């Protein structure tokens, strides 16, 4: 019994010992476990390889998220809503929901798609700024310059889209803290935004080469800068840049349709890459443009107005640009970017592979666009040109479309029409109308015929209402919203 008591006594101490040891053995990181399924930002961006992963993340931002949630950034996958569907080219199939606000020119400041694109562009800019802020760790000067050029190309492209869609916008050229409220809500005049775009693209032209088609390249920077100069009315600079691209080995595909179904063909200068069947790297705009294949019942449906233009002036391009919707024969669909190149069978909506996980790359800049920009640069704001270089570039685009009659003069409106039928449904139409100074006349007429609500203030989208609200009076809204 005595022995038993001793054991008892010992157990008492053992118990205490266990507690004390457990408490003290708790190492300091017990409450600060290190995540092993992700990386913390503090410990990253230490060398060139890690900075390059930051560059890849910029393209991930351009791709956007293939989902149906409005809280994910959809980036370029949603761009058609804000561009083609606000032009005379497309509309929704059944006029429902927020998507229908664009075609009716009654976009509300609370529109989620408008906010989504704004968020997407600034997310792209943010990712570019991260690369720029971390260049110091890249020891090889050439590599650092190339990274800088690449980040700035992407930043410029995002700002170019923002300034054309929203007008004066906040200018963020470095990584900012959430507490830097002033810069987040201060709308900088468009000309200053263009200054940054020109400066960034100039850096990009000098620092890049033509290795990639789905990453930034010299030709892509030249082409984009040319378009920026055209927008700013600097025609001779634009002409030179177009000619630089024309001397860089790009060319037109013989068959117009092949442009869209041969990824990275010789006509592609810059595209956003997608891979089919992968939820994280595919796109769903191809499916949304079909009849109830995507989440919507059908968007980016073709207007009769553009059908007339394509049929009358498009040559072979008409048949490769749109088709009758087999499921609803009063409606017409875009046939550039059919999901994974499939036709969708007899009803136009039965696809072999999952159409909502489509792999078609999105073409941002292609050679035909550069040729027509070349014509535009030579036209230099005038009403017509007979310049042989301009005629030559114009003729190349027309020849490929099977319109081989020799052109002897190009008027401004002919060029605009040519751009329309060549680049239909590639998100150029609205910007072209504005750049050519024809937006007001064309869209008013189109609106009147179709009973829509166009007014000149509709050329700019609203700043997302949530930004206005968060700014607590700091930020002003565009006119008309």
């Amino acid at each position: 019994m005595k022995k038993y008591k001793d054991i008892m006594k010992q157990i008492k101490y053992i118990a205490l010992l266990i507690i004390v040891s457990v408490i003290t053995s708790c190492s300091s990181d017990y409450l600060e476990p290190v995540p092993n399924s992700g990386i913390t930002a503090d410990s990253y961006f230490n060398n060139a390889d890690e900075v390059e992963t930051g560059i890849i993340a910029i393209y991930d931002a351009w791709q956007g998220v293939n989902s149906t949630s409005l809280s994910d950034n959809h980036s370029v996958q949603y761009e058609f809503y804000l561009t083609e569907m606000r032009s005379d080219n497309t509309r929704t199939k059944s006029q429902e929901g927020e998507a229908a606000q664009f075609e009716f020119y009654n976009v509300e400041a609370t529109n989620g798609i408008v906010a989504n694109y704004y968020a997407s562009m600034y997310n792209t800019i943010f990712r570019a700024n991260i690369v720029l802020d971390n260049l110091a760790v890249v020891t090889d000067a050439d590599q650092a310059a190339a990274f800088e050029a690449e980040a700035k190309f992407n930043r410029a492209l995002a700002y170019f889209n923002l300034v054309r869609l929203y007008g004066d916008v906040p200018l963020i050229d470095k990584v900012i803290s959430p507490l830097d409220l002033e810069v987040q809500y201060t709308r900088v005049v468009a000309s200053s935004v263009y200054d940054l775009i020109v400066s960034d693209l100039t850096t990009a032209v000098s620092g890049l080469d033509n290795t990639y088609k789905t990453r930034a390249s010299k030709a892509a920077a030249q082409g984009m800068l040319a378009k920026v100069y055209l927008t700013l009315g600097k025609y001779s600079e634009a002409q030179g840049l177009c000619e630089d691209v024309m001397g860089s080995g790009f060319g037109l595909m013989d068959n117009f349709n092949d442009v869209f179904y041969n990824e990275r063909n010789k006509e592609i200068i810059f595209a956003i890459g997608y891979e089919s069947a992968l939820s994280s790297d595919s796109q769903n705009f191809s499916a949304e443009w079909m009849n109830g294949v995507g989440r919507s019942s059908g968007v980016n449906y073709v207007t009769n107005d553009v059908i007339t233009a394509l049929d009358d002036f498009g040559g072979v391009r008409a048949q490769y640009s749109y088709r009758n919707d087999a499921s609803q024969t009063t409606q017409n669909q875009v046939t550039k970017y059919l999901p994974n190149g499939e036709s969708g069978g007899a009803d136009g909506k039965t696809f072999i592979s999952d159409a909502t996980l489509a792999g078609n790359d999105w073409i941002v800049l292609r050679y035909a666009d550069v040729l027509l920009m070349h014509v535009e640069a030579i036209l230099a704001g005038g009403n017509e040109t007979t310049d042989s270089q301009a005629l030559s570039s114009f003729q190349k685009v027309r020849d490929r479309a099977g319109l081989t009659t020799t052109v002897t003069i190009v008027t401004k409106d002919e060029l605009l029409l040519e751009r329309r039928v060549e680049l239909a449904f590639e998100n150029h139409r609205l910007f072209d109308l504005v750049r050519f100074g024809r937006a007001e006349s064309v869209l008013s007429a189109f609106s009147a015929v179709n009973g829509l609500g166009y007014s000149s203030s509709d050329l700019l989208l609203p700043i997302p209402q949530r930004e206005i609200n968060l700014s607590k009076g700091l930020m002003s809204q565009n006119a008309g919203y």
Partner: protein
Amino acid sequence: MNLKIKLMLFVMLMVNISIIAQDSFTVKGTVISQTDESPIPGVNILIKGGSKGTTTDFDGNFTLDVKQGDILDISFLGFKNKIIPIVSQKVLRVLLEEDTSALEEVVVIGYGTSKKSHLTGSISKVVNKDLDQIAVSRVDDALVGQVSGVNIQATDGEAGAAPTISIRGVGSMAGDSTPLIVVDGIIVDSDFLGSLNMNDVQSFEILKDAASSSIYGSKGANGVIMISMKSGLDGKTKINYSSYIGFKEARHSDAYTFSIAETAAAELAANGVLSDRTKYKQLIGIDRSWQDVIFDGGTITSHSLSLRGGNDKTKFATSLNFSDDEGVLLTDNFTKYGMRLKLDSKLNDKISIGASFSPSYTERRRFDGSTHDILRQTNWLPVYHDANTIQYVDRNIYPDVQIGDYAIQRHFDNYDLYGDGSVLVDISNTSNTNPAAKILERERYDKKFKLFSSFYGQYKITDDLTFKSMVSGSYQDTKRSRWQGVLSNRNGASAAQMNEITQRSTYLISDNFFNYNKSFDKHDIGATVGVVFESRDEFFSSISGTGYTNDGVKQITNAATISGADAFEWEKNGISYVSRFNYAYDNKYLASLSLRRDGSSIFGSEYKYGNFPAVSIGWNISNESFLEDSEVVNNLKFRVSYGVTGNDRLNTGSVNPDSSSSTSSLSTGDKLVDFYPSLALLAATTASVNGSLQSGFSPLNIANPELKWERLIEINPGIDFGFYNNKISGSIDWYQRTSDQLLLNNPVSYTTGFSNALVNLGEVKNEGFEFELRTRNVSLENFSWKSAVIATTNKNTLVDFADSNGQIQNIDAKRAAEWINLEGMPISTYYGWVVDRDIPLEYLKNAYHPVGGQAQDVYVKDLNGDGLIDDEDKAPLGDPYPDLVWSFTNEFKVGDIDFSFMFQGSHGAEIRNMGDQYIFNQFNSGQDFNTATTPDQDFIKQKIFTDAIIQDASYIALRNINIGYNFPEDVLSKFKISKLRVYAAGQNLMYKTADDYTGFNPESIDRTGPTTYGYQRAGSPIYSTISIGLNLDF
């Protein structure tokens, strides 16, 4: 003494009169409370005039060696003593009558127990007397209406789906509002409620006020449900077998039941002729509601076998159970297998050890569809083509359709109605596949294996001081699979896909506690000090495949393409220091103080630790001299409590899509952020570069090193009362809960590169009354009648919502019905236009197609009178939180027959029933107004943006009804059976909803966020059950 017992004793005496006195023999007995027939543990049984005696175990059982002529003195604090002379009885059933002057029920509280009379917080106890006779497959489903302050709502009517439980309202905006679940002192995931077996449950104690739950610190803010499992028994092994079978039937909505015949009659009356479409529909000859197809009813069965026994040193309880619930929807099913072993052993006077071990396996087949999507399809559409329907198929477009194939609406288009080619009639209104195919051709399973185990050692250092150390582990392995076959989608094989999610969770807790209890003079002192360590490890992986050409192998391996794969692993650690001090003076003046200090790994480096204090006091007025001898008042206690608790659960949403609450997701949208919210994280991304994927890293969140838990502060005064020897007893509580520093995904400017930052902001207030009244109306030998009324009111107010104040949210851009989160109103408040009047049928394009169609639009009110309808005319339209929830229970006992029923109701909540939009086919163009003729078109809006679909979600239900027969013991003893009860029970045999509610379950709510709560897209039906069962004890 009970007349029956007297009689029995007399008979026994007569039988035994001639038997010569023997040596000692063993008597076994059970001591139960006369009030509620629950067993009483810890009852002293002494043989008069000697020192021999024993006490009853946790189940009220005792064994004692006696000899003829002994007199047993049975006593227990709070009950009147009972004297039983031993003649030759070997089995005793002792009913103790409550001595209400000293009511001494023991209540389980956090990390300990307390005498009920010493409680100063708000804790409700539910003893499992007949809860196990309610034919439901989850224990939480059986608790509806049992306790005030606890709202249990059948938000998902699928078999095995967890109800939404909220205690005293919803306080969290982004975290998890599910109460903490504690089983035998061990914290478990709320998901364990889905695998518990009710037959193993002894009682539930619900800690409602913050002072009671603050002992659980940063986990206590949503209240705590403590579950005590049955323990082993001292004495002969008691074997129990319980079983029931129930038949379930879904509640149909009359409003959603249409017929072609009725529509045709209305059309004929209005137009004088039938349209070709209507004629064609009648010709097809099928006219039935899709509710009849997808609400197929079901059977629920349960078998449970338990053995409990042991001796005074070692006791055991073990059980096996099986239940199968077919659910009332097509394909849904929930099967549960469980086993349990619990051992307690006293090594000696000082040391006792124990262990428990309970593995379970559940398999749930989901109803993989949405009722709104199916019920919107038309009455005339068959499921499969037969010899009749095949003749209507448009052979030009569908040459291959055969008898036995799924019928699709489009098959029936272009029908030559008059046989002469004069009219080709289209009647389809969707290109969707057959609604039944959408369900039957998908297979969605949740398979879960759970293992819950614990081990403890307890050492009695002195008579007053004990030390207990417990290690527990819960392990959960979940596999969710979702197969969508080639026929399940209108897009055919290209949409066939498989998704598989594997989750593994390990949760280890070590509790180490000193307990001190001392009574001297008039002082009762209790103290508890301890330290708790916990560690949680989670693994999640998901894989998806596409490219199936057939249904042959429904596995990832047969996929042509792996379309997505994902895996995460994370951990969460915590350390807590717990202390509590209780004091009672003369059983009159009570006080309790507690403090918990919690450290949690998920919060910011500056706020790893937080303190959670509580204080409560009570005054037992009935023990004061001026009331001590009162004939009327036998119990009267005033108490006030104040406490602070926290909520640290911000992870479950993105990880556990079916966690028990529909309000349980902080969705930062990323699992990694959910677990490491205070760190600046980078996410791996990929981009396609020249045709191949390259990987990148990009920032995922805005880091917040100052992040901490949500805090809840609650004040709760209350009164407990008992009159006329507790013939009337009950309690009244008032509470005010203020939840602040809420975890919010506060919006930030998009220009930062992000849209939200996780911060502690905002404040929500819940306040209300709780009322419980229990009466013993009649207590006669052969007839008793008891009643209980339980009622709770709650008012939810958003007090501070920082930058999000006034935010308007929708959950579906296509049908953007809005909620507003506005300070001064409930968290989620419906928002939209107010209906003025309907559009007369004459202005609709085609009011009689499709069948059951109703106008999409409605005239709304110009609230500000400016002559146009815009955002300025929108108004708050109601909220989804009930103002009053109540139940009314009656129990009767006539001889061996008992009968009970419970009515339960909820009032004041509204629901946004989006089901109307779908099922009345409002989006169909036939239901559009004619733009050429309709007047005042500027005043027309779609119904879904108005209060036309904001409906009263109130209900009154006959929740439970039970009638049982207990076979007399004298009959049973011949068969060595100690107890046999057979019963018939019913749930929801009556279920009355508000007149304007059109759906089939006003409790059903889709899973959205807490700020957009109350969305019902038809939902899943409430169901009624009729069951029969038996309980058998050997």
